[in-house]
């Protein structure tokens, strides 16, 4: 469906196929999903705008045994409405903490990811669960780990000709998973820290541990090397094991201090969160 509105051509594709054709025909078209970011930042009217929210494939949620696939144009409120039993807990908490109900009704999961900036609240929990994204580029459609998508797009953001189609989140059993967000609104610029963590045990030993921080720059921090320190450790964790882990985390954060955690308060918060999370494994 097309609508010429003054100088702006507005297109409303109903399927991915239609979207693909339109993107080829109008390579400079502005893709418009929820609009919560674009409506704030757009300075000039585009010549062509493609509205994404009627595309079936981008607005559906598919739940399989081992994963859930969420179309990039699914709103945050729709994801929350699936409930805590379906949505992985850290992601559920992140969406709840991200914005108020009115924004959740229009903001989309894809939009939150594609901002690729510190204001994205969902990147940290999605990286925690090893989410993957399906991306349409000029060379075709392919899957990419979200972490790699973030790393490759950190400087550029999503570029013309690319469309984020689907986010696939593995559904795994976790013994404990959590998310916190802290804002400092009085620093020179808004400073936000997101912490996400999850642990799985097997026969009272740590089988998998994940820890992700979201901040200003880099967008997200995750170290598999650090996570591996406690793999195989028996519960309850010894104080010296927690101390060692936190000491290694401190060293890691020190190396990132120039870019990451711009507000000094966040440095301590990241360590305290980690210590609290690891200690809570002993008490359940």
């Amino acid at each position, binding site marked *: 469906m097309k609508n010429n509105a003054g100088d*702006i051509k507005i297109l409303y594709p109903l399927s991915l196929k239609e979207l693909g054709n339109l993107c080829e025909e109008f390579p400079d078209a502005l893709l*418009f999903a929820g609009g*919560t970011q674009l409506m704030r930042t757009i300075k000039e009217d585009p010549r062509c705008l493609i509205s994404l929210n009627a595309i079936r494939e981008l607005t559906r949620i598919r739940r399989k045994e081992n994963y859930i696939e969420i179309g990039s144009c699914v709103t945050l409120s729709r994801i929350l409405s699936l409930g805590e039993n379906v949505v992985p807990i850290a992601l559920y908490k992140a969406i709840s903490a991200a914005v108020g109900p009115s924004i959740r009704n229009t903001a989309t999961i894809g939009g939150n990811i594609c901002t690729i900036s510190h204001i994205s609240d969902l990147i940290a929990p999605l990286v925690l669960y090893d989410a993957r994204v399906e991306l349409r580029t000029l060379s075709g459609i392919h899957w990419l780990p979200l972490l790699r998508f973030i790393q490759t797009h950190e400087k550029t953001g999503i570029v013309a000709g690319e469309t984020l189609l689907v986010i696939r989140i593995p559904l795994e059993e976790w013994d404990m998973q959590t998310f916190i967000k802290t804002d400092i609104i009085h620093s020179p610029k808004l400073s936000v820290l997101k912490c996400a963590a999850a642990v799985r045990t097997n026969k009272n030993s740590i089988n998998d541990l994940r820890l992700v921080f979201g901040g200003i720059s880099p967008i997200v921090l995750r170290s598999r090397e650090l996570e591996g320190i406690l793999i195989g450790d028996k519960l309850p964790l010894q104080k010296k094991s927690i101390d060692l882990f936190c000491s290694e985390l401190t060293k890691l954060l020190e190396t990132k201090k120039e870019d990451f955690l711009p507000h000094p308060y966040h440095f301590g918060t990241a360590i305290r969160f980690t210590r609290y999370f690891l200690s809570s494994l002993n008490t359940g």
Partner: protein
Amino acid sequence: MKITFNLNGKETTLDSPPLKSLLDILRKDLGLTGTKCGCHKGECNSCLVFYNEMLVNSCLVPAFRLNGTKVVTIEGFTQTKEYQTIEKAFLKMNITGCGFCIPGLILATEALLTDKPHPTRDEVTENLSAFLCLCSGYQQVVDAVLYVSELRRKKKGEK
């Protein structure tokens, strides 16, 4: 572009640039100034309206998304019986102040109680935490929402 949508129960047609916000259309084109403009960034929540029965920030809804939709502003909502209990509760709790955020708060209260008729204090606090209000005080607003819930429970004869 030509836009036709249902505004407060009436079919409304107008010409608008496609990216003009619903907020600007309401206030500047249609003179419905009950919907307030605080930040134009979706942060202050003073511009809330119901859009297809969902609470949204009208400053973030572009005109091209309006065709065929149903929009209810504070002017339309005050004509409903649901408004009566909210008004009663807000008056009882002395939520006056400058009044700038009140239209948004009223619509947010209705949205919350539609979704959760009997919320806890924590749920109300969390739900309304995105509001910026400098003069009426947050606790009274939370008290008022809980009072509305109580009034409606009594009205329905629930225990």
